[in-house]
């Protein structure tokens, strides 16, 4: 059913505040789920260090793992200085 107020909104091009509410909700629910908790981050960091250490010598204390948020993307940024390449033992 098309109500009078909806009809009027259509004429005036005015936006219903509930549409804004819905958009904000959909957006925040997606973001809420992307939020990583501390233990997940620490575990992830350990795993990454283990994998990288197979190939490079790294300083385990100077690395940092961050979640960076932009308007449309969420990125994981892992930063570590490489000390040297590990020699593969034959």
């Amino acid at each position: 059913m098309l109500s009078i107020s909806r009809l009027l909104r259509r004429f005036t091009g005015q936006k219903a505040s509930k549409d804004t509410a819905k958009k904000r909700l959909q957006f925040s629910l997606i973001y809420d789920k992307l939020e990583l908790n501390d233990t997940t981050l620490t575990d992830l960091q350990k795993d990454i260090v283990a994998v990288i250490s197979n190939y490079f010598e790294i300083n385990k204390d100077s690395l940092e793992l961050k979640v960076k948020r932009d308007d449309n993307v969420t990125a994981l940024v892992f930063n570590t200085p490489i000390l040297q390449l590990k020699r593969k033992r034959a």
Partner: protein
Amino acid sequence: MEGKVIVITSGKGGVGKTTATSCIGAALALEGKRVAIVDMDIGLRNLDVVMGLENRIVFNIVDVVLERCKISQAAIRDRRIENLFLIPASQSDNKDVLTTSGVERVADQLRKEFDFIIMDSPAGIERGFENSIVGANEAIVICTPDVSAVRDADRVIGLLYSRSLTPKLIVNRIEPARVERGEMLSHEDVLEVLSIDLAGLVPMDEHVLISSNTGTPLVLQNESTAGQAFKRIARRLNGEADLPVQVPVCKMSMWNKISRTFGLKR
């Protein structure tokens, strides 16, 4: 046959858990079922006053879980509605006195003595929430049509799923006139955002506050639209799964609608 434990929960506080618990419990008892309503909001008990049974408390749910009394000693019989019992919360204890294993044991005992056990969960997602869902066979999430309540509902739905419970949703305090004007999320909006099945829709209703003032059951008032909505929810829980959901409508006259739309009236 074993009874069913249904937990009513929300995440956000003040959205209508206690109201829903008392109404659904009373309505199920009116349908002829033997019903226990359990207040799991330890330290902040409220179900007793909403139901008008606050003067008859002797033992409480903490006493039952800690085996200081039997279920039959803690369950207060409602004298107005047959087969309706309240197990109140304790007012002095802290939420941490209960253990999940203790609550599970009591839930098993309750299932043997009642057809339905409705648990009123505290707000939040901490220990008290865990305790109220641990013994549940089914869960109902309740929210109001606003951004924060729906967001919290989403969080709670996720937590329930991770405990293998598939909840159904009640949208409470719907104001049809405002939905119509586009000022309030419609139940369709809420369902789309949460992707969950509906247990029922409950309108904003002045009778809710009035009946909680006096401690009289809302479902006994035929003129209460919320009371009638909760009755239909109870029938759906009691096997009439196909009973259609009624969408709250506004009772405004056509003239009021027109004048409001054109800004003549607020």
